[in-house]
């Protein structure tokens, strides 16, 4: 946890400084009538810088490394697979469409991550895709992304 706090503290500090400096450089701090569009962002950046510094100091003082926060081994692989599959689904959304994408996504995760049987996998995947289609496309008239075959 301590090393995570150090990384988070440093990243937040950099973000805060960039946020405040960017506000002053690009936008108006004080206009003719009063505070401009840079006013609040500048102060928010400043407050965040102070908070991040406090986090860094606290993390520096603590000597124990603290418990690990990321899982290792199998847990990490599962996590990476879920995030990766979701990202691929979203990236390909406009190409393969929501319905086919949903079926593929569910099959990948249920069959290869969780080792569900094929009948359960196929059944759930088709049911969820159909439910999604009926509720959003038919009922709510949300034009979900379509792929080949207009699905």
């Amino acid at each position: 946890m301590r090393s995570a706090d150090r990384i988070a503290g440093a990243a937040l500090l950099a973000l805060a400084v960039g946020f405040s400096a960017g506000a002053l450089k690009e936008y108006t701090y004080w206009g003719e009538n009063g505070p401009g569009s840079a006013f609040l962002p500048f102060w928010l950046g400043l407050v965040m810088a102070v908070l991040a510094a406090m986090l860094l100091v606290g993390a520096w003082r603590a000597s124990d490394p603290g418990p690990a926060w990321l899982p290792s081994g199998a847990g990490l692989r599962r996590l990476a697979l879920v995030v990766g599959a979701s990202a691929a689904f979203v990236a390909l959304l406009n190409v393969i469409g929501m319905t086919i994408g949903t079926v593929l996504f569910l099959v990948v995760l249920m069959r290869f991550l969780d080792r569900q049987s094929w009948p359960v996998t196929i059944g759930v995947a088709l049911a969820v895709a159909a439910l999604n289609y009926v509720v959003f496309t038919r009922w709510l008239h949300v034009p979900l992304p379509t792929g080949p075959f207009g699905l």
Partner: protein
Amino acid sequence: MDFLANLSLGFSVALTPFNLLMATCGVVIGILIGALPGIGPPSGVALLLPLTFGMDPTSGIIMLAALYAGTMYGGTITSVLINTPGESASVVTCIDGYQMALQGRAGAALGIAAIGSFIAGTIGVVLLMLVSPALARWSLAFGPPETFALLLLGLTTVTLLTGESALKGYISMVLGLMIAMVGFDVISGDPRYAFGVPELMDGIDFLPVAIGLFGIGEVLAGAEEAGGSALVKARYGWREIMPTARDWARSRWAIARGTVLGFLVGILPGAGPTVSTFLSYALEKKVSKHPEEFGQGAIEGVAGPESANNAAATGAMVPMLTLGIPGSATTAIMLGGLMMWGLRPGPLLFEKNPQFVWGLIASQYIANVMLLVLSTVFIPLFVRALRVPYGILMPMIIVFCITGAYSLKNSVFDVGQMLVFGVLGYAMKKLGYSPAALTLALVLGPLAERALRQSLIISDSGAGIFFTRPISVVLMMAALAAVLVPALRGLAAARRRAAVRAA
């Protein structure tokens, strides 16, 4: 009497067949969401919000409010049967509820929780009805400085009570405010922090953020663990669920105390149901004649906190409706929904949209009755839902998160954004930051900025304007206290640790 006229207006709205159907759906889906581990009330409300866009706002909020009440009860089922809270307001219920289940009294624990929730919810709605109009009238006198001071108080108190450390709570909150700055500035028209990306110029919508932080964040936290937990077997006949005379004698004052305590804590901006359950449990243990039974299956330990969380969920509606300040993460998401429907929560809501406010209040009565009926009659059905393996549930939740984020503006960009916030939500959860504080700040940020700048424009003494007007100075002092109290407590703890090390 305009009070009764308002209430009958409310019931005429709430009792239309469509709204009744929406309340039923809300309660059933709510109990399921509350019961399923890995998906809590904020993600449930965020996921269902897109479904309500096609509806009339009144029907939409009726469904969401019924859903919220349902989740409060649903979380109890998992706490009692698998010793895993479905959501944070049921953590305390695990202590004695699971012990009762091990002693073969799962039915009694679930039964008393349902009855306590019903009583607390119903009394909570009566209080909501009595308190809100008065508060709304009072806050009608608010100018920009009072509004800003109130928003500041809401932001500081939410950080006070969520997350593991106050510092990380504040970091989450300020990060939320920074994200709220992205997009066109309403006063000057500057496209702030958009880096020329058209999607960012419109600002970062809270819905994809909320779905990501809560929905995906929770799913990822569950994904790294394989397998499920064992369910305690139990019978759920009428006889098992109805409390015995002895149970009732022990629980009734616990329910009464939990109701009052829960409602009061719920009204406080930022406090919310979870805190009320911890306070109620501590209170019951203190006033009990046999405190040694707590932790061994004392029924008061279930009745008190379960009543408190339902009363608090109702109480949290008070600041949301009258002041536009949410009392919990879930009401923060509902508040965002209200704003999307073009309703401006706050004092004017009661005057301009009476059918909305009173329809919501009346439907809360109906939702409570449904909750009692559904939760006692259909407990076996909801228990069966717990048997759905997480490996099937998790990919399904992700699909609904993706569709929900997309449906807001039919934008794949929003979906990507949702996923990014999902990973952030996972990290925040793991590292002890507060996704609730971030979401709240994102919703309140634009309102706070406008009030702040308007105040400074009309002020001739700079920030002095906040400290010269009576209401705003009180609110500012309260906000200051909310910052200082945990800071001082942290200092004292550090000093104590240093003293221990020196000794």
